């Protein structure tokens, strides 16, 4: 099989699975759903591995989708090390999570069960299209399709009002991003007259670009760093990235998205879709390398979101919401990394985060399953002895999140911080480094709080299940695999310690460029110090939340606790600034325009017709003599008229 066919197979296998399960697929025995749903993702993973080991590379055009004059949109897939890297994460982690769903969703009835796997396969297909697309048009198609599948899966339990509202919120926020993306692509097309990455980036590299022959425009020369149209395009693309990755200020949908089933949270809202923004910045790095203002904005947005989300996570009591804010925070790190130009570090953290956050979500799913759908951590407690395997996995995930050596989170996070610290002659990088370190410490604290509240201490008296059962094998094995990956995954790239392999950076060097500056020794020392402090805060949380020997910080700063519990009032501000004015406008439109004008016109037409008909129907008396009288009268009038004419 040639590389181009293999790339197409990677993309189309999940689509085939979705088509098979869609519609009336549930009429088939449930075993078909169980095999097809995860099976196609595993098959896609196998095909991706073949691409990976075959060291595939290339830009394959399959057919022309639109051709109109100089406007030419091919359907092409770009296979390079970045897209293979993303495909490995999506299909690898995705296959584990879809397999886990086989157990997690088993209580659903057959139609819902098949519907769930249809949506999951649609999502995998959309995400693969997003990362494999070789032009802006199909990037947008994939971008919108992942938004759609996210909407469908958040609202999977559509009988629940809160789920439907959350799905709608996510969709609206994502559409804001989609509009930004599309406008960005327009700007790029208007400037470069091309939609494929290859054609656009080739013009960027040479520094000059010429419109295609036949257009009477002369070639222009770009001076690196002051191209205003590139800045505009980069900012517009950033809007899309920010909305998809739940960064400030378009982040409010992600915590609500936890209404979806837990495997959805693990797959879409932790491991893959929300990292699409990071992929986008990485894929567009030739643009961002020139558009420095937009590039710096990426770093600032990431740093601010990282800190902001971490502080909110401190006060959340719903275990999935803690993980959601933690996801926002960790994606903030990735934005920070790609924003300062440390692309490989950002993507390494993406990989690490996919491992340990999917692990945390699925382990939390096991806990929620065992607790009969209770998600409030205050009602857990003391699970450590009762659910040993889940607890150990969760602990590994938590420590990886905190960044404890030698787990994968340590190497990825410290590499980002180290890169920010040692970037030469860049005060912005230093500023975001400070924010990153503070966030790392807060991460240690909220993770410790989550761990101790849920698993430590004694069982809460409000706990719904006294003696919980460990999850089934099909739910346990993916968790254990991810736990193993979280332990050993860091050893493929130990640059954070200044020694050892750097597989990810080397692999991605051909796609996002080589590492641009080396870390200095100070960064390594500070990184280890940060790790120790974060781990100490993790342990200190025990004193606050289990032993309760220390006064809670919130009793000293009640206003801060209220501020955090209200999530900095973002929902309230958006409600007042956008939702309520819009509702008011809609009310005015309904009352003063819709009802009197449009309704009036439509209903009035009907009324006029009825009134006219009823007055005309008076002439239809049904009496023979009336008709004859009219007839005779008419004849008389006609005769009189004839006589008058004849006599004149």
């Amino acid at each position, binding site marked *: 099989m040639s590389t181009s066919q293999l790339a197409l197979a990677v993309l189309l296998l999940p689509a085939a699975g979705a088509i098979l399960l869609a519609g009336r697929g549930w009429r088939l025995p449930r075993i078909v759903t169980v095999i097809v749903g995860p099976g196609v993702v595993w098959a896609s993973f196998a095909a991706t591995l073949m691409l990976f080991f075959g060291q595939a590379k290339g830009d394959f055009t399959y057919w022309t989708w639109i051709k109109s004059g100089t406007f030419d949109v091919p359907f092409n897939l770009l296979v390079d090390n970045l897209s293979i890297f993303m495909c490995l994460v999506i299909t690898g982690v995705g296959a584990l999570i879809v397999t886990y769903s086989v157990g997690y969703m088993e209580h659903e009835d057959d139609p819902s069960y098949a519907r769930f796997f249809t949506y999951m396969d649609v999502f995998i297909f959309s995400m693969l299209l997003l990362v494999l697309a070789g032009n802006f048009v199909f990037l947008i198609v994939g971008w919108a399709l992942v938004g759609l599948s996210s909407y469908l899966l958040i609202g999977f339990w559509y009988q629940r009002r809160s789920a439907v509202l959350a799905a709608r919120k996510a969709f609206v926020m994502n559409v804001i991003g989609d509009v930004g993306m599309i406008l960005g692509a327009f700007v790029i097309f208007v400037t470069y007259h091309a939609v494929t990455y290859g054609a656009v980036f080739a013009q960027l590299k040479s520094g000059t670009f010429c419109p295609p022959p036949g257009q009477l425009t002369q070639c222009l020369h770009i001076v690196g760093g002051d191209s205003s149209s590139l800045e505009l395009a980069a900012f517009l693309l950033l809007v899309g990235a920010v909305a998809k990755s739940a960064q400030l200020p378009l982040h409010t949908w992600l915590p609500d998205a936890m209404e979806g089933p837990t495997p959805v949270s693990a797959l879409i809202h932790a491991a893959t879709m929300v990292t699409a923004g990071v992929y986008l910045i990485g894929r567009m790095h030739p643009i961002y390398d020139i558009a420095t203002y937009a590039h710096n904005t990426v770093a600032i947005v990431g740093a601010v979101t990282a800190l902001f989300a971490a502080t909110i996570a401190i006060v959340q009591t719903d275990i999935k919401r803690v993980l959601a804010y933690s996801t926002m925070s960790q994606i903030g790190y990735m934005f920070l990394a790609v924003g300062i130009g440390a692309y490989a570090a950002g993507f390494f953290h993406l990989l690490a985060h996919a491992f340990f956050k999917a692990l945390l979500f699925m382990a939390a799913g096991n806990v929620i399953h065992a607790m009969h759908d209770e998600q409030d951590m205050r009602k857990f407690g003391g699970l450590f002895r009762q659910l040993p395997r889940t607890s150990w996995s969760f602990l590994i995930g938590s420590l990886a999140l905190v960044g404890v050596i030698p787990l994968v989170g340590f190497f990825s996070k410290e590499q980002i911080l180290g890169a920010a610290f040692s970037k030469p002659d860049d005060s912005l990088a230093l500023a975001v480094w400070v924010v990153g370190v503070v966030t790392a410490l807060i991460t240690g604290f909220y993770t410790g709080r989550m761990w101790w509240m849920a698993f430590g201490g004694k069982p809460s008296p409000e706990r719904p299940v006294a003696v919980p059962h460990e999850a089934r094998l099909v739910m346990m094995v993916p968790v254990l695999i991810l736990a193993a990956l979280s332990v050993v995954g860091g050893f493929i790239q130990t640059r954070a310690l200044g020694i050892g392999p750097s597989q990810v950076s080397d692999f991605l060097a051909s796609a996002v460029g080589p590492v641009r500056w080396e870390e200095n020794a100070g960064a390594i020392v500070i990184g280890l110090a940060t790790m120790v402090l974060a781990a100490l805060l993790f342990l200190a949380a025990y004193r606050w939340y289990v032993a309760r020997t220390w006064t809670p910080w919130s009793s000293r700063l009640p206003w801060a606790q209220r501020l955090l519990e209200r999530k900095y009032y973002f929902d309230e501000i958006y409600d007042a600034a956008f939702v309520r004015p819009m509702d008011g406008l809609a009310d005015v439109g309904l009352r003063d325009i819709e009802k009197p004008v449009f309704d009036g016109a439509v209903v009035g037409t009907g009324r006029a017709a009825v009134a006219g008909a009823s007055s*005309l129907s008076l002439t*239809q*008396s049904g009496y*023979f*003599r009336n008709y004859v*009288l009219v007839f*005779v009268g008419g004849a008389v009038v006609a005769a009189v008229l004839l006589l008058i004419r004849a006599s004149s």
Partner: protein
Amino acid sequence: MSTLEIGGSQLDAAWFLLLGGVLFAIGTVGVLVRRNPLVILISIELMLNAVNLTLIVFSRQLQNMEGQLFALMSMTVAAAEAVVGLAILVDIFHVRDVEDIDELSEMKG
């Protein structure tokens, strides 16, 4: 005013036309005021024959046979019309007795 020769005597044509007009008026009033369906049909026949008379008078007066042809035509149509009208009435009588044509006002709008 010209005269017509009828049975060896000369008669002013206006009298024939006046007769036609009077017959037509009687027929019209009959259609309008009578209630029995059969009488209405008879009144219609009267109107038709009034017209026939007028046609023949003009035909004789103008020495043109077309008027007579037209009268023959009109009689044929009248016969057909009587057949159709009677058939409808007979069908209605199968269902119920109709003494007053006003009873047949189901088509009231």
